[in-house]
């Protein structure tokens, strides 16, 4: 993971998605107008978040089966980075909703679900700080993390699809695939998603490496 090519890929994909996202053609729709371009910037935040949370859950399972402290460190740093993307997603979503739905926080099941999911992951971080003993902390928080992940998926992706949500693809709403009939948006959208996921993973690895150095320092002193 210390190779440079995928970091350059991350940077260039995000930059390409910015240029294509601003300039490229988009379907002309009422209410949304040009704000449909937010799909390239708001949605990738959530993709990056769920990727980081998945990494975190996988490493929590790995920690429980092997007992290696490094895996626990990866799990925490993935959540730490994922929560940044979660807040960015919430903020950009609120700005977008304020204009198109007329309210920064309409009582939408997807919004409420994401709020609960955010609190759940904040609770994970608080839980870690509350436990003093290292092994106990790592074990309990790993178990919590493994349980939090499926609940987050249900709250964010399954429950809103079952009820009426303002988000696309929920209830009777059409999905973005139906709106984007000429398939102009799809390549740009995927470029943005891949770019942002890689950027998130990159930031996570930086945080992890800093933590490793810190851990070594505390062990030496």
């Amino acid at each position, binding site marked *: 993971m210390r190779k440079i090519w995928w*970091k*350059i890929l991350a*940077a260039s994909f995000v*930059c390409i998605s910015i240029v294509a996202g*601003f300039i490229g053609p988009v379907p002309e729709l009422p209410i949304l107008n040009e704000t449909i371009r937010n799909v390239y910037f708001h949605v990738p935040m959530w993709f990056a978040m769920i990727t980081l949370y998945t990494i975190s859950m996988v490493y929590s399972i790995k920690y429980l089966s092997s007992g290696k402290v490094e895996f626990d460190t990866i799990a925490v740093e993935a959540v730490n980075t994922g929560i940044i993307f979660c807040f960015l997603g919430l903020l950009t979503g609120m700005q977008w909703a304020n204009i198109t739905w007329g309210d920064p926080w309409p009582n939408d099941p997807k919004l409420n679900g994401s709020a609960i999911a955010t609190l759940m992951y904040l609770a994970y971080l608080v839980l870690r700080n509350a436990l003093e003993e290292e092994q106990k902390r790592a074990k309990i928080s790993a178990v919590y993390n493994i349980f939090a992940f499926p609940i987050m998926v249900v709250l964010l992706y399954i429950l809103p699809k079952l009820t009426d949500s303002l988000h696309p693809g929920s209830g009777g709403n059409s999905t973005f695939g139906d709106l984007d009939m000429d398939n102009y948006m799809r390549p740009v959208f995927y470029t943005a998603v891949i770019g942002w996921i890689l950027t998130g993973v990159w930031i996570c690895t*930086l945080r992890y490496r800093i933590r490793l150095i810190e851990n*070594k320092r505390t062990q030496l002193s």
Partner: protein
Amino acid sequence: MKKIFLSTSFLFLSLLSAFAQSNGVEMATYLRSSGKIWVVVLVVLTLFIGIFIYLFTMDRRIKKLEKDK
């Protein structure tokens, strides 16, 4: 590493400005060039290139720290 990154970003920026100029000539065909949207694109792109350069330098500094051990 830094050289590769700098040269690619310069190439990208110069390509972009060339593209923007050619748009300026054919104003009537491009809807958005008259609204000066390219300026916004350039500003946002500069911001993100700045952020990525910051990430790359941070990466290098951490690498140095790792080698010290």
